[in-house]
């Protein structure tokens, strides 16, 4: 049975209404889940005997293309069976709150701080949620799309013929 099916069946069994989508993107099964239940789902995935996603490979943030939502992406790994899945959750940019995963994996500590630093996602229950790579005095969240990389007021450079 495909990994996507195995995980999807398990999740459907326990969190029927909270799985918004399940799809195979290249070599990864990807699940989008309800942000209020993300902690329960992570806990279930970690502690379930057959799935046993005991290793948090990666945790990062993103902003959707319409710039109205922020997301957090978890990459989980079960080493003995070599299962790898990706879990996503999205929420409104004006209320960017999601439960922390630091109680499940201490490794999530700095990764969540980094996500907060760059996207302003507030992880509820995080022991020490403050900026990590940028200076403490910074008052923006630089990886959000509303902060363009280059000075948009530049007049000496015309890229319109390239469609940008």
């Amino acid at each position: 049975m495909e990994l996507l099916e195995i995980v999807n069946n398990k999740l459907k069994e326990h969190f029927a209404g909270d799985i918004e989508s399940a799809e195979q993107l290249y070599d990864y099964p990807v699940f989008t889940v309800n942000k209020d239940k993300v902690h329960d789902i992570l806990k279930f995935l970690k502690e379930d005997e057959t799935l046993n996603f005991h290793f948090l490979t990666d945790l990062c943030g993103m902003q959707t293309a319409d710039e109205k939502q922020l997301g957090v992406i978890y990459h989980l790994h079960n080493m003995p069976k070599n299962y790898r899945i990706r879990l996503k959750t999205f929420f409104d940019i004006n209320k960017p709150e999601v439960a922390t995963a630091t109680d499940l994996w201490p490794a999530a500590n700095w990764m969540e701080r980094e996500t907060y630093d760059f996207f302003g996602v507030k992880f509820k229950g995080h022991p020490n949620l403050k900026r990590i790579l940028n200076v403490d005095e910074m008052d923006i969240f630089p990886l959000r799309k509303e902060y363009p990389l280059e000075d948009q007021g530049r007049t000496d450079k015309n890229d319109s013929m390239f469609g940008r």
Partner: protein
Amino acid sequence: MSKKETTYSVNQEVIEEKEYSTLNLGPTHPATHGIFQNVLKMDGEIIHDAVPTIGYIHRAFEKLAERRPYAQITPITDRLNYCSSPINNMGWYMTVEKLLKAEIPKRAQYHRVIIMELSRIADHIICNSVIGVDTGAMTGFLYIFQWREKIYEIFEEICGARLTTNIGRIGGFDKEWSKKTWDLIDTFLKEFPKGLTEFSNLLERNKIFMDRTVNCGPISAERALAYSFVGPNLRAAGVDYDVRVMNPYSSYEDFTFTVPVGTQGDTYDRFMVRQHEMWQSLSIIEQAIKKMPAGAMHADLPDFFLPPKEQVYNNMEALIYHFKIVMGETDIPKGEVYHCVEGGNGELGFYLISDGGRTPFRLHFRRPCFIYYQAYPEMIKGIMLSDAILTMSSMNVIAGELDA
């Protein structure tokens, strides 16, 4: 600076009164090989607590990448773990190729394996010789570093650069390697075992070295997994996780090699795991040269392969491709991929989201250093300051990878 801390019993009686001193280790301490700051709470020479501050060389790579065409992101990856840039380059190419669903010729894949294993050796040479330096053995460092120089000469012969290599192309390599490159590799394979044996003889069973490193900064397998350790540091704790074996990429399944593991997860085990990995890398390179298949050096991806100059001037298509590549106007299909390679420090991941344009919509680097360095305060609790320095160098924390 010092502060008093008092421990009380239930009846508010004073059990213990201790005075801790605060020591600022770093940001530019000569012993820490890079810009790391740790505010240590010391009880004499014993570390009671540590608070690391990072981000001193943060260069906003993830934001920069959002405005760069795909080929121009390679130089950014060079500067992550700059001790083994080619592995980062290859990892990035493979991520894009996965998104493009490109098929890379076996010959190019084998060349990639050679270059990645060479840079793994270079990475481990740096880490292990610096462990030697931190224990007071400068000699090993001075002798083994000439082999790193030889590896950099090979890189220089292939791509012209030594440290930040930007080696190869999306889809393979730009050209066949020169005869001189192969001569340099042959000499390296012949001579390096002598150098490595000499280095092993100097340190591996050295009484002073073992006294300093055995049981210094240990971490158990459970804690290492909880902290998402990868690579040699995880293997030293006894978990045989290697991306090359678990999720083979670039034809690693064609080669026979063993994955060395430790038991204690201490500095000595980390040192020994890296030592043995160098021997394994040598054997992989030899196998790759022996089995080297014939064929092309580049996949059929004209969008990423600068055509030869005479064709640019005489052939319409070549001119178009040349212009598109130089101006960075190549669109990439929509999609998202995660690809990981076994870097010098373990699983180096690239999470790429493309919205179909010429630049990534979002690119995230899974940097092993950044993730496992947060276990450092736990690892150095209760040990001496000089051992803490040793623990840090044995973890191979590279500032470029840590701060992105």
